[in-house]
């Protein structure tokens, strides 16, 4: 099973069980539904901004999916809650770059924190979409919440 340890790191398996943020968010500023057509799994992720509109106050999501997708949503919630919108955009970009790396290079641990555990997933091309699911939904939420603001 040693082959799998790069994919299913302890941190991922742990997040997939804890599911931080799992549950519907009341009064969201933006919400987005994302589907993975390969498997039919889906997630609906919502955010609330603080009064200034520049910081993500809360994240909540509901969905069903594999351990990678659930762990990714959970890790994302931990990482992005309380972060500035600009910072979140950088996070999403960095996560996407890491997921496209096919396992090459070093992930930016300073920026991504625990989420670097997903670096190993990038070697499994068929699972990259799993890890991206929540992040794509978050990106769409941020885009629509800030568009509404403007």
């Amino acid at each position, binding site marked *: *099973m040693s*082959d*799998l340890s790069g*994919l*299913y790191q302890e941190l991922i*398996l742990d997040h997939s*069980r804890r599911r931080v943020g799992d549950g519907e968010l009341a009064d969201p500023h933006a919400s987005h539904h994302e589907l993975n057509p*390969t*498997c*039919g*799994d889906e997630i609906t992720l919502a955010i609330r901004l603080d009064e200034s509109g520049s910081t993500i106050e809360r994240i909540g999501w509901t969905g*069903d*999916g*594999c*351990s*990678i997708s659930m762990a990714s949503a959970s890790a994302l919630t931990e990482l992005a809650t309380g972060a500035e919108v600009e910072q979140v955009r950088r996070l999403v970009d960095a996560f996407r770059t890491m997921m496209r790396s096919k396992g090459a290079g070093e992930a930016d641990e300073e920026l991504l924190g625990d989420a670097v555990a997903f670096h190993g997933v990038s070697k*499994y091309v068929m*699972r990259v979409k*799993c890890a991206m699911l929540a992040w794509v939904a978050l990106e769409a939420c941020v885009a629509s919440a800030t568009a509404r603001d403007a």
Partner: protein
Amino acid sequence: MTLDPTATLGGRLPATLRDQFPYLAQELNGHPLAYLDSAATAQRPTAVLDAERAYLERSNAAVHRGASTLVGTSTGAFEEARATVAAFVGAGDREIVWTENATDAINLVALGMADASAGLGGSEADVFALRPGDEIVVTEAEHHANLIPWQRLAAKTGATLRWIPVGDDGTWGIDDAASVIGDRTRVVAFAHVSNVTGFAAPVADVAEIAHRHGALVVLDACQSVPHRPIDFGALGVDFAAFSAHKMLGPTGIGVLYGREQLLDALPPARTGGSTITTVTMERAEFLPSPHRFEAGTQPVSQAVALGEAVRFLDGLGMGGVHAHEAELAELLVDEVARIPGIRLVGPPPGAPRAALASVDVPGVHAHDVGQFLDAQGIAVRVGHHCAQPLHRRLGLRATTRASAYVYTTADEIRRYGAALAEVRGFFGAGA
């Protein structure tokens, strides 16, 4: 290529058969590959690869177009393949139409019926014309390929789509069919063998009921033709569809079987070169079957390869293939049934089923199950297997499916069972 079926089949395949499949000699993630996804697509023996290549290096030319020596050779090879496939399924040569795949074959029937309903086939095609009030019957267990085309036909014609319900194990019986098929039924379309449950439908009985009500019978034979002796004439179906790539043959070619008089009257949904007698700027007159349906350059080398695949299977003997797979099916079910907490979809242990099993591992997503097996060199299929409504009915979103074929060994099935038993522990999903 003939092998003694008693030596070959019976649970222990001789190395000589495996050796004919170069793909299977590979490693996967550092383990010998156990390819348990033949229900999705099968691997090709060297004989099939060689036959296609020999055709391409020596006999390839336009078919049915022109009159040169080369065209004579290519056309001969192409039509000989048709005769070989026809004989394999109890059909006449004119009852076998090449298509892109089985999906395309089913679409050709449904689209042809839509054309007939729009008056495009003249009075000859009346038998295919649907009107509001008419009913199309499928089952709740169908592959999307045998569901969506009928949904679209219903939407175009105003006919109503009805379905035979399945039980909690995903199977259905003749009484379920009889309660849905009635005098308004014009088509009954169902899978011979389900690609999710492995359940084999009582084809001849359903056909009998359907015909009594004047309905046409369309059989999705994707999971039966590769695995057991088939005689469409004897089964009494009107149309049937199957794909070459699930029976040791190439992708890019499927087969539509149809009774000759029906095929001659069904409007060709796809039109173009080689399907016609006379064309003016205003209109076209079509050839009889099969050529009326074979628009444009056909999958010629693929037909030749499929012919060789059929000869290969005939060499093994389809009775023997079926017996071999029945044994593997039993072993597969035994392996799964002895793992606590795993849910087996389909007929219960002991009941007949095709050599495939879909399972749900509570607390572990099917894609994670598949990934875990993959790391041990075991390739299975995960997902809804193009049968979302069936999975929804079973309260599941996805399952993990292992499926066997002529080259599958008992050892591979046992490796699968041993690995599956470890899944819940690995993911901490409790015993």
